């Protein structure tokens, strides 16, 4: 994955936690999407996407989240987004009403 964003995954108490750090724009949205797909395991039914370390997200990133949620739903998986209350990305998600489509929580601990 290019330097612009890093994707890491870990399994924690039956949860698949995927962290996206850095910036997501049209230049790397497809790559990030692929990386998330690879990181997602079938260990649990809930996938937690941690965007705490995501410093930039534009419409292509939001599109990515919507499509990811749809793909996971097809596999009977649930997607939870972790975005801190005070982060700029949270405000963006609120603006696009994404929080009405995908569950957004403030901390990974709240995702279960």
């Amino acid at each position: 994955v290019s330097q612009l964003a890093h994707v890491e995954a870990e399994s924690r108490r039956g949860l698949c936690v995927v962290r996206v750090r850095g910036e997501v724009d049209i230049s790397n949205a497809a790559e990030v999407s692929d990386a998330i797909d690879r990181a997602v395991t079938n260990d649990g039914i809930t996938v937690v996407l941690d965007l705490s370390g995501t410093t930039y997200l534009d419409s292509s990133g939001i599109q990515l989240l919507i499509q990811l949620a749809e793909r996971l739903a097809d596999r009977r998986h649930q997607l939870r987004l972790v975005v801190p209350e005070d982060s700029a990305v949270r405000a963006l998600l609120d603006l696009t009403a994404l929080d009405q489509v995908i569950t957004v929580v403030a901390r990974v601990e709240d995702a279960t």
Partner: protein
Amino acid sequence: VRVSVARARGLGKRELPFILRTILIAAIYYVAAQLGLELALIERNVTPLWPPSGIAVVAFLLLGRRAWPGVALGALIVNTPISTNILWAAITAAGNTIAPFLAAEVLKALGFRREIDRLRDAVAIVVAALGSMLVSATIGAVALAASGAIRWSGFASAWAVWWTGDAMGVLVVTPFLLSLFQVRRWARATWSDRVEAVALLTVLGATTAAMASSRPNMLFAVIPLVGWAAWRFQLLGSAPAALLVSVIATWAVDHGWGPFDDQRLFANMLTLQAFNATVALSSFLLAALVTERTRSRRALERAAAELEQRVRNRTAELRERERQLADAQQLAHLGSWQWLLQEGSITWSDEMYRIHGYLPQEFPMTFERAVEQVHEEDLPQIQANVAGALASDRSRALPNTEYRITRADGEERVLLGRARLEIGPDGRPSRMVGTVQDVTEDKRAQREHAIAETLQRSLLPEQLPMIPGVELAAHYVPASTEADVGGDWYDVIPLPNGHLGVAIGDVAGHGLRAAAVMGQLRMALRAYAVEETSPARVVARLQDLVRAHLFTEMATVLYLVFDLDTSVATFANAGHPPPLSIAPDGSARYLREVLSPPLGAGWVSSPVGDVTSARPPGSTLLLFTDGLVERRGVSLREGLDRLRHEAERAWPDLAEMCQHLVTSLLEPEVKDDAAILALRPVPLASVPLRLRLAPEPRSLAPLRHTMRRWLREAGADPRESFEIVVACGEACSNAIQHAHGSRGTPLEVELTLAGGQVEFKVRDFGSWRHEPTGGGLGLPLMEKLMDRVEVDRRTDGTVVRLRRRLRVGRIGEPARSR
């Protein structure tokens, strides 16, 4: 003055005082006269051989006119007892003085030489003797007759005897006395010569005596012996021989011996004097001839010997020059040739043969052989040059030609030929001469140097990228010596995450190899820089690469990442001189915190740490290679101090600073190359931000970084900044995605602040044929984030304008410091 000169001359010649000299001459004269009178024929005072006249001539020859008192005194003493009275004696004496004086004067006038070694000397003495003695004979005979000593009837015979006697005295005695001055020659003579001389004179004396006493007149038989003496010993032989023969012959006449017994006095006199004269004349002539011949032979021999010596010297000289020329030709790889056009012959110097891979003078050169090794592509040029020159009617140089030859062993050499045509006196080309220089090595070195230089030039960025918010300047000074191409390099890499990577490095060594290593390092660093965020990681990977690929060269590198967003520089340093940090106020210090070993074989890997340094706007970071600070005879520390000293001031213009540092620190003749690179963050928001972006997604991240900084400085809070950046990013993403048909025409982006309102404008030159991706989220997002969105679609592209008023409190107040 005359006195002192005379005295000086007298002292110089060690002459006897006047009186003593006079008495000595007179005494010798008297003794000789007594001997002569023993041979007197008439009375007791006329003698056929009068030695005193010869003595007097010698005295005048040796002493000049000063000798007259001695001669006069001697003559007076001799004549007084044999004259009737003192008056007649004085008259006779005067005649006896004047005659030899005249003889000496005549000899001098004729250029007589005392050595009697030329024919003219022999003739001169005969002329002087016969001529001058007319005076003494006339005066003497008149005195005899007048005084009554003889009768006038006997005057003629008395005069004749007197004349011949005096003449013979001069002719016989003078050469003998003069020959005595050459006795030194006997000292050099061999013993056999001396024995021969003595034996010859003895035989001559005996023969003369025998012939003079024999009845038939056989005196002429002594002539061969006299000739022998003259031939063998010249004057030394002829003078004594003549004297000896004359004395004996005269003695014989006087005593009425042999052929002279019954003849009349006059007839005897005539015979005797003729004989004496013949002996004297022939012996002296022969002696003079032999001497002359010997002298000319010696001169010839000397000339021949001299000539031979000169020829020898010249030959040696020529041989030496030839050797030097051959040495010079060999050293310079320079051969020479000559082509005689009329004769059609070609000669090559030894070195010409060597250049062509032959042994010197291995075979006679011909035109065919001379050009047989020339590369077929180069031959026409040479032939054209030769033909062109031959068509000319005046001497001129042919164009210099570089051509290739292939030697018999297959080796190809590059030669540089120079030639000249010479026109003969007949106006036709006579010969062509030329030199050939083997320039293969030079060409190879030149080519390598050119490749290395091209390589290095191509590896250095032609132009530094324009990064908004950062001022960059760089300067590279190649080594002034032609042979060396250095391994200094630098690079500026705009990273995908919007940061700026800056690298500077130095590969040890020079030339093609160093340039090649440098190129590999630079490319590797570029690759790692994109993959790694930490400069220390980039450097560590370079270490691994270098170790894995076993470069023998040592290399230093300093890699720095500048975060445009935060204005923080992070760097790692592998053996490179530390960067110099210059604060906006001009104070400077080196950033020496962490230094890792250089890249290269033999260095054990050690962890390389990142160093961070906040770079406020206006502060400068100076990266350089050691070529800038290293100087012969100056320690590195001193060099670094000098650089800091020169850089320590406020520089409004970075390019000017680099130029100043290079000029003030480098000597005119740079042995090593030097690179310098300066980086300075500059305030952004004070001016509108205008950028041209490649219509590609990768342009977006750097744009966001620049915008964030600009917005921060414009007074936007982080949330505002984020939202504006997202909105502008959407606009740009659309422009990029729909810039089809723009053929890569850059997007024009402008960010301005007016009256507390931020206005963003992006213009593309494409056609919006497709609907935006991102599910059509882009436009609504822009509208939600900004106060106002305008989309102006034109035939040649689209302009999108976004406006948003910043929150009150910081309107129009760009943040100058953080």
